[in-house]
């Protein structure tokens, strides 16, 4: 455990630029948008909009973080892999640090989304908290979920790059990625079988806004909130968790047994 915690500490140092980049880009965007909308009197609305958009964009945070972090290690695989720790431990250290950084960044963004959003989203405090928590938890978990597919793709890339040029390896992984996405998200997750194994354990979340329509001009800003009575299935989360654990196991196994320095 001591070795793993020291690894986590190292990963915090490796991944810091990504967290700083996310926060700095957000702050720069915030300043630009606020400055340009201030004279029209929509500065706070703009802060809310950019907060919501950047918050949603955190879906990609973990994938970008993992690509960066694994890219750093690729230059020194002899160092990273010359370690008695199981590959799942090496990868978990990266996932944990990335998640912590994502939560910090998302909390900063959430403050802007909340403060600005108060102007145009007529929720009670209780609803704000509920919607905010649901959105927060989903962005974090979906981002982690997505990043594990990215880890597997990167490890396959590391395998291929031993046998073919870097560009070709990247191209093969890219094509494979889209093929997998089509088969999994386009066919499998739309199938009756998928519905049968996931649609159980119904949970009623109540009315949840799921989209905002913006109509902004120099004279006025109209924001329409749309939503629906939302229900989710516990089965969906359980099955996705199982699938992602399997993907994580495969990625760890490949890193342990097949990736070469």
């Amino acid at each position, binding site marked *: 455990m001591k070795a793993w915690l020291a690894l986590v500490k190292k990963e915090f140092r490796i991944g810091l630029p990504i967290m700083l980049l996310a926060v700095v880009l957000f702050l720069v965007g915030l300043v630009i948008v606020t400055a340009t909308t201030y004279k029209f009197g929509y500065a706070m609305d703009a802060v809310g909009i950019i907060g919501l958009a950047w918050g949603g964009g955190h879906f990609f945070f973990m994938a970008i973080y993992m690509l960066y972090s694994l890219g750093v290690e690729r230059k020194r695989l002899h160092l990273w892999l*010359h370690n008695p720790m199981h590959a799942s431990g090496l990868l978990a250290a990266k996932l944990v640090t990335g998640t912590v950084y994502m939560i910090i960044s998302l909390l900063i963004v959430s403050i802007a989304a909340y403060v600005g959003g108060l102007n145009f989203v007529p929720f009670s405090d209780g609803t704000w908290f509920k919607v905010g928590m649901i959105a927060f938890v989903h962005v974090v978990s979906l981002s982690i979920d997505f990043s594990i597919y990215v880890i597997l793709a990167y490890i396959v890339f590391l395998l291929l790059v031993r046998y073919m040029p870097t560009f070709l390896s990247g191209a093969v992984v890219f094509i494979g990625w889209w093929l997998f996405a089509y088969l999994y998200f386009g066919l499998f997750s739309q199938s009756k079988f998928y519905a049968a194994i996931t649609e159980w354990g119904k949970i009623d979340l109540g009315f949840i806004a799921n989209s905002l329509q913006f109509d902004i001009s120099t004279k006025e800003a109209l924001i329409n909130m749309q939503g629906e009575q939302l229900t989710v299935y516990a089965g969906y989360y359980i099955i996705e968790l199982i699938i992602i654990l399997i993907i994580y196991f495969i990625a760890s196994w490949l890193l*342990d047994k097949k990736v070469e320095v």
Partner: protein
Amino acid sequence: MIEFKNVSKRYMTKTALRDVDLKLDKGKIIGLVGLNGAGKSTTMKLIAGLINPSKGSVELDGEKVTRRIASKVSYLSELDEYYSFYTVQQTIDFFATQFPDFNKEKAEEIRAYMNLDANTKVKHLSKGNRGRLKIILTLSREVPVLLMDEPLSGLDPLVRDSIVKGLITFVDTEKQLVLLSTHQIMEVEMILDEVIAIKDGELVDHRNVEELRYDEQKGILEWMSSIYE
């Protein structure tokens, strides 16, 4: 201790190592010599579990070598890449956390011997000092096997001398096996117990240096010349 059983390693169409059978025992400093591309680094990486044989098997104390053999093997890569944001001391501390056998007192002793400033950032180290850092990190582990891939490469004579002397001083020749690949034969000849020659991926000879010297009145360089010419 280390045993190669009919080991081959191929990369696509290129064969890096071909049908190698080899046994290495502890308590020896062994030189691995050969021309560039002969298969020296491949041999090292196979023992470190960082690559897998295409054919045959590599065993350490009867256990099949995998990446996690790192608990018994200390590997010095020919590459100089370390975590550049760490200082020398932080790098040593990090290694100490990753390997339970890492002896921090020994590391401090070697660092002082190598005259390497503990507070310098790794990214600011010269090539020679990065070479010294690699030696500190490798020799401070109390493991049965030390693998050193080109530890003297690209370093000036003074650094090379301090590294060779460091090897004599800090390796436990009773308990540890050191496998050392180098082109600087003259500088390590006096500390080698055995020498292995690799040519075009094949193990061409494996000799005891003392026997070579007394039986055939040959130094390693002469012996190499007879093999490679």
